């Protein structure tokens, strides 16, 4: 097990390194950011001085070496736009993203897994049909549209919830619904199809024959066996929520990482973008590792060498 984790951590380090190298190289194609940050009346001589101070005039390899040496020590340089350390600016926004993702994921699982289980248990009932219909809608409605509609109905028209921002529990409601809609739909569909598969297995019939009650059969015997792919999806979706809540964070003025990184990208603020790439790569690698380890707990037949 220890050997397995060590190998995976090494792999993760390589992934992070490659991702940083790729994005670092790509920034050279995106145009000179320096002029975008300076006022229009800056003279060419001063632009040159600014470039020189930032080290933008050095050869690619020199810049890359300097960046990597800094990155290893957690120094990604200062944001070009705000002049503060880029890592700090991103980390400040992490709690907002984590809390929203956690609430959204809890909401998604809390709704989706019971819906998936009941739909499977009562296949072709009205509940099953309604559930399937809702999941199709959940996957088909674009997040930005759903978000804006929720704002217009609940904040502008009914005036019962805030339009956006952070502050009270009420501020969580609309963004977490928006963020969880798509995720919940995926989970519900996956849970349903896995449960259908498991419910036709011999051991379920045995369990029933032993005289176990339906809830115990469904949750103890069926769901645990159906949950392997759900855990994989959970890890992937959590990664996506953490790095990809861009639209929800933007529409609801949620002060999170996704919104900040997109603004940085639009502003060509590369040090911030690189921190974003670093964090995303670390989070994905970590979640994948966590998912693999969860398999062992869920399915004792899996043993890592």
């Amino acid at each position: 097990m220890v050997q397995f984790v060590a190998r995976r951590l090494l792999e993760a380090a390589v992934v992070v390194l490659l991702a940083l190298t790729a994005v670092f190289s790509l920034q050279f194609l995106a145009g000179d950011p320096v002029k975008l940050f300076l006022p229009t009346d800056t003279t060419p001589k001063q632009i040159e001085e600014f470039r020189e101070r930032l080290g933008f005039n050095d050869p690619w390899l020199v810049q890359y070496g300097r960046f990597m040496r800094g990155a290893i020590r957690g120094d990604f340089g200062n944001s070009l736009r705000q002049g503060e350390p880029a890592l700090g600016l991103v980390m400040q926004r992490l709690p907002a993203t984590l809390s929203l993702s956690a609430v959204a994921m809890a909401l998604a699982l809390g709704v989706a897994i019971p819906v998936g289980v009941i739909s499977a248990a009562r296949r072709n009932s009205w509940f099953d049909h309604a559930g399937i219909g809702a999941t199709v809608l959940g996957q088909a409605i674009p997040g930005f549209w759903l978000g804006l509609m929720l704002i217009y109905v609940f904040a502008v028209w009914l005036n019962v919830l805030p339009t956006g921002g952070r502050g009270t529990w009420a501020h969580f409601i609309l963004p977490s619904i928006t963020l969880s809609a798509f995720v919940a739909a995926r989970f519900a569909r996956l849970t349903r199809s896995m449960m259908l598969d498991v419910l036709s297995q011999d051991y379920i019939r045995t369990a029933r024959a032993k005289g176990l009650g339906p809830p115990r059969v469904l949750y103890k015997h069926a769901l645990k066996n159906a949950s392997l792919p759900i855990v994989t999806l959970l890890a992937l979706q959590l990664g996506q929520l953490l790095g990809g809540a861009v639209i929800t964070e933007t529409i609801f003025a949620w002060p999170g990482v996704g919104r900040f990184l997109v603004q940085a990208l639009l502003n060509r603020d590369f040090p911030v973008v690189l921190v974003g790439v670093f964090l995303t790569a670390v989070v994905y690698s970590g979640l994948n590792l966590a998912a693999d380890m969860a398999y062992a707990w869920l399915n004792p037949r899996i043993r890592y060498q």
Partner: protein
Amino acid sequence: MLRISAALVAALLLALTGSAPAPTAAQERPLVVALGAEPRNLMAMRTVDWTTNVQQMNIYDRLYFWDGMPPRIKPSLAAELPQTPDDLTWIIKLRPGVKFHNGDAFTSEAVKWTIEWLLDPKNESHYRPRFAFVESVETPDPLTVRIRTKEPAPILRYWLVDFTVQNPNYVRQVGNDVAARQPIGAGPYRFVRWDRDERLVLEANPNYWNKPPAIKRVEFRFIPDFSARLASLLAGESDIVKDIPPVAVEQVNRSGRAEVRGVASSRINYLALVNFKPGPLQDRRVRQAMNYAINVDEIVSNLFKGRATRTPGALSSINENVNPNLKPYPYDPERAVQLIKEAGYDPTKLEFTLDSPSGRYPLDKEASEAIAAYLGRIGIRVRVVVNEWGTHLDKIINRRTGEMFYLGWGPALEAQGTIAELFRPERTYSGFGTPNLTLEINKALPIVDAKKRQAAWHRIQVMLYTEAPWVFLWQQHDLYGVNKRVTWHPHPAEKVYLHDATWAKR
């Protein structure tokens, strides 16, 4: 399963308890200004950026500011307009008895410090080039600043407008980084809190020299998405939102909560005709033809519903130096065709690319498409390329646009900031320059005498009108959505001074 649920509940609780408490009903609700982004920093005289400066201006006071309509320079931290005993000396008398938010006295020392601070390259101030001509700053007494310049620099009169002043004691004590996050100024509002990407909270300065503000608490909230900003206005959460698109004016006015208040801005929009590339646009007649071929009045009345003011030349009608004798090019497509033929081209064989931003200026993309359609009527094929803003700017700065591009410029209330910045060959925001024009501009720059300077700028505007470096379009109207409970009027130079705002009487 139970364990997972417990973990989820714990996560939920953690998330909820991590957030700030709700304001109590007893507190007066703050005045909320919704902006697209947070400030880049809160250090006076460091960064040129509209969003940043709008917020800073309420914390730091300025030496001078633009007031009234048409806007004229008025003293604020200064006691009177600057005196210029000779072409190289500027004397600024300061208002007595002014204090910074921490109680330190505001004196000539603070002005001297701020100028020297911004000139020091290590502070990376965007204002350094603007003050490069400063030779020395002296403080003969606590209320007098004497600036000596290396060469005659009449533009200094304008650079002192909106010149915000740092508190030297404080900056020396805490350093640039802290001062840029927790500012201390002498302005009408003092800093309370800055929640990153959420809000900047300010409270009224009870000791402000010019009667304390009527509204006691102010919040700038950062809402990047425009639709969400509009929704927050309609829901009554925000009180001031800039740049309401003309199509949404009705919706705001019908809401019952808010209304649209507009002002003809000093920001102009233009279609630049690039003459640095070989091609038909190097010929003045072809450029004039573009002005004759486009029915600007019709675009203003139909597309903008009258919410734009046509400009005959390169300056807006409220610019101090505008030449009032220029009349807009009339719509005359036949004359346009004739001019193009005189220049030796067949209009039906001309093909241009027009680069346009989308959503940066009011109806910019739609206006570009309308322009292309008018040129299409005389046979010119125009391909409109719509760019994301960063790309658009990048193309302009690196001269990679098509033959035409759409851009806005301002706020501009004097000539130099527009003409000298746009029509000299090394500047790229216009794509136009001729040796003769450069010569005339360089001659005008050092003229200190107000009358002679005005005459020089008027003459250059006539030259520009004839050279037709642009299709001259309009001053944009800035449309602000304002909650009806607030008395506040938009400023033509895009300032959001909240000192004048009051709660409307019901």
